[in-house]
């Protein structure tokens, strides 16, 4: 019985560790990507965004998503991939007005992404 209690407590501790660790990790990783997107947004607004800027944001996302795949459903990552590809393609062609809209969508997605995995009533039900 003592062994069972120890196993249970270990499992609870493990779960708590995973819960807090995952939430912190998603918040920080998506937060960093969100900041990069904000910078890109400002540059697009000023019409100074370059191919390199778009490329570096893409690289940053590629690095983050390989780890985020472990913690969030892959469909959510695909949405970001889709909108980011479109935004980058527009920046490459200097179509800043259209790219702005795509980046806005991305900003909204990355703003809400960590929230959709946090313990909130609307997420539970």
């Amino acid at each position, binding site marked *: 019985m003592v062994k069972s209690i120890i196993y249970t407590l270990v*499992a609870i501790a*493990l779960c708590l560790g995973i819960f807090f660790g995952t939430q912190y990790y998603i918040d920080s990783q998506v937060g960093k990507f969100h900041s990069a997107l904000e910078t890109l947004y400002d540059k697009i607004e000023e019409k100074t965004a370059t191919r390199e800027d778009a490329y570096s944001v893409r690289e940053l996302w590629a690095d983050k998503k390989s780890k985020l795949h472990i913690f969030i459903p892959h469909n959510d990552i695909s949405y970001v991939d889709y909108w980011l590809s479109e935004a980058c393609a527009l920046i490459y062609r200097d179509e800043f007005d259209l790219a702005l809209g795509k980046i806005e969508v991305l900003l909204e997605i990355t703003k809400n992404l960590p929230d959709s995995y946090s313990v909130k009533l609307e997420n539970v039900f």
Partner: protein
Amino acid sequence: MALVFLRTTIIFFTLLLVMRLMGKSQIGEMQPFELVITLLIAELACIPMADSSVPLLYGIVSIVAIFILHQIVWLLDLWFKPMKTVVCGKPSLVITKEGIDSYQLRQNNLDVADLIESMRGAGYFNLDDVYYGLYEANGKFSALAKEQLTPTLPVLLVDSGKPDEKNARIAGLTVDKIKEFASEQGCKLKNVLVMTVDSNGRVYFQPKGKPYKILNMQVSGQW
């Protein structure tokens, strides 16, 4: 991840509640919470395996959640006795020396036909072959048998006031004849809880809310 844990917990307790409400007819040799775990584990393991868009960690966390909930329920069972009744239920005495307790049957969402089937499964073919019969918390039927069993196979003629025409034909009887027999006992057909007859014409007759009687009647069927 905490969200997955919380959702699994909610599903676990919802299923447990539903299983408890369904009564013993739905369980069959498992405690309600064991059945819930069996139902959940297969699904939880299967979804992340089959759907590659769901991280494997989701399945692992859900299964660990089930393990924790199982341990908690088990420990509560050990330490806090009333909890055992809440989670697992308690045995229901459905046959006493006075006959069938219809209230207990209803409490477990069972009818007389289910009881007779359980008795046959346990090796008793006549309702008066046992002094006491009960459904354990896990849905298994247990009985204290009489020293002498009646070696016949009775057919159910009336189940909760409703005559069984097919069985009546097997016994060579008609519904009118059954009604007549019931009125001879001072009882309307709708007030008969159970009536069975075997090939020797031995009748088990129990009106609702009254003790059973063993009577005789003429039967012409062969079975």
